[in-house]
């Protein structure tokens, strides 16, 4: 091989390392760039206010009029507002990776990659800027809540605690999103992954109904599924002559029937531990058998619902 270079390393140039606060400065530099973008484009803030507004004004009002969800002494809107706060903050954070993929496609990310800042500072800076975004979202929900006369606790310590949790939560979810972005590398896939994560988390949480209700439904369903499959009751008809499917939403309907006062002991596959919510006055007050296990089941359950094709009738 022809060589166009003399042998050995060349003359060494002077080193230019950062000072002791360089790391903190790097994080700040990355975060500040993101926050400035937000300042230039306040339209984004307004658009992101649409979803929580719809949830609170439309869904919340309707549900509180129906009184379909037992929320104890709280009004339904009071019960739901913190859930919507958490939900809207989490949704933004979980789709944070989308912007990272866009930056990577454009090449803007290269600017950071060839700069002397460490990869850790880059990720932490992005996480903090996601936290700042979430704060703006939290402010929107607080304003909405005040306008709708929702009873928010406005003690400074309380609010500070909420905001701290909001920042921490969105930093965690946004870094998770960044990790996924690193793996999937395309817009379409990260949007899909975001949907797969957000909806199950949302419906398995107690954002819009007490967790005991959802845990009961989901666990009944999850317990019943394998039994159904094992005993081969895949497509038999039930008492009313309708075809019975092992699909989750059929299970949900059965679960509701089972929990009705007349049918409470009809199905032996439902263990007593899963009969939370049998009496309306207990609903939401009795903790479900094990919330952690139920939470896992619910996530899984949501995945199943999303992944499975809808059966044709």
């Amino acid at each position, binding site marked *: 091989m022809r060589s166009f270079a003399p042998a050995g390393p*060349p003359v060494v140039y002077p080193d230019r390392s950062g000072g002791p606060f360089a790391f903190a400065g790097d994080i700040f530099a990355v975060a*500040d760039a993101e926050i400035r973008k937000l300042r230039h484009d306040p339209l984004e803030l307004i658009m992101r206010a649409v979803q929580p507004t719809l949830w609170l004004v439309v869904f919340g009002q309707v549900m509180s009029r129906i009184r379909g969800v037992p929320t104890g002494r709280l009004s339904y809107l009071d019960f739901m507002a913190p859930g919507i706060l958490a939900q809207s903050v989490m949704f933004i954070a979980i789709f944070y990776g989308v912007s990272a993929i866009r930056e990577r496609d454009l090449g803007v990310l290269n600017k950071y990659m060839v700069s002397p800042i460490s990869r850790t500072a880059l990720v932490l800076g992005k996480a903090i800027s996601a936290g700042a975004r979430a704060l703006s979202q939290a402010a929107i929900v607080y304003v909405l809540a005040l306008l709708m006369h929702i009873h928010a606790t406005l003690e400074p310590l309380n609010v500070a605690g909420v905001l701290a949790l909001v920042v921490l939560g969105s930093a965690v979810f946004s870094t998770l999103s960044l990790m996924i972005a690193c793996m999937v590398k395309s817009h379409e896939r990260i949007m899909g992954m975001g949907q797969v994560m957000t909806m199950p988390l949302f419906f398995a949480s107690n954002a819009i109904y007490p967790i005991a209700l959802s845990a009961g439904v989901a666990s009944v369903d999850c317990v019943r599924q394998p039994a159904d499959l094992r005993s081969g009751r895949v497509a038999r008809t039930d008492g009313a002559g309708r075809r019975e499917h092992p699909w989750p939403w059929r299970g949900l309907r059965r679960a509701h029937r089972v929990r009705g006062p007349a049918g409470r002991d009809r199905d032996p596959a439902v263990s007593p531990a899963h009969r939370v919510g049998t009496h309306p006055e207990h609903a939401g007050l009795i903790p479900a058998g094990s919330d952690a296990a139920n939470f896992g089941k619910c996530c899984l359950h949501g995945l199943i619902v999303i992944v499975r094709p809808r059966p044709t009738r």
Partner: protein
Amino acid sequence: MAPLGGAAPFDGNSPSSAIRTAELTRRFGDLVAVKAVSIEVRAREIFGLLGPNGAGKSTMIKMLTTLLRPTMGRAWVAGFDVTRESGRVRRNIGYVPQALSADGALSGYENLLVSARLYHVPPAERTRRIEQALELVGLAEAAGQLVRRYSGGMIRRLEIAQAMLHRPAVLFMDEPTVGLDPVARQAVWDHVRRLREVLGTTLLITTHYMEEAEDLCDRVALMHQGRIAAFGAPLELKAQLGDSATLDDVFMHFAGATIETGGGYREVLRTRRTARRLS
């Protein structure tokens, strides 16, 4: 143009080399993108890395800017090993990638501010250096505007400004004039020349416009299929072939192929995208 403060970090007259590679090799699976390349770029030189799409130019630049690890061989940039001292290399280089590196959602000034912070330009000096850089590339009046509203040529000039804010010893530019109209292209070359005069920066530039390389570069390396096909000053290379020869002819002679061949779908897509955003 008043000289910018802060002397270049090395003696421009010494024969030290700014970049040196030894048998530098990069594989992507079965494909060998760069095959045992050994070159040397002298300090204060404007060096051109020429070749068709897919010749290995961008892979070379990515290895030298520490974005990609070499499969084999070694390389030193500004005196530091690109794999073992990548942090130090990054502190001493600037990089103007072919893809966008200015952020459209920020103003020109803010883009420079972010760069100044990333490269630890002392806070006391930041404003002064940003103003100087803006003046050097002729963007002082547009500094407050969002980069989204800049023209292609203005974005390129801003990218050059942000890559030189920290006065790098070596500046890498990947296809800096793709997609620019002739006037904007000429302006970019003028800025490149001025950078070297004012700051004593060493420049490594990739391009596939041969006539530009002839005008601008002190020395060039012609790459073909991952190897260096020819190396030397443009005039010397042409003289080997005769009076009326061009660098295109030189490339034909040494590589046995025209400059138009080569390049995969991704390469073409990338070039087109760059051309679109800059026009």
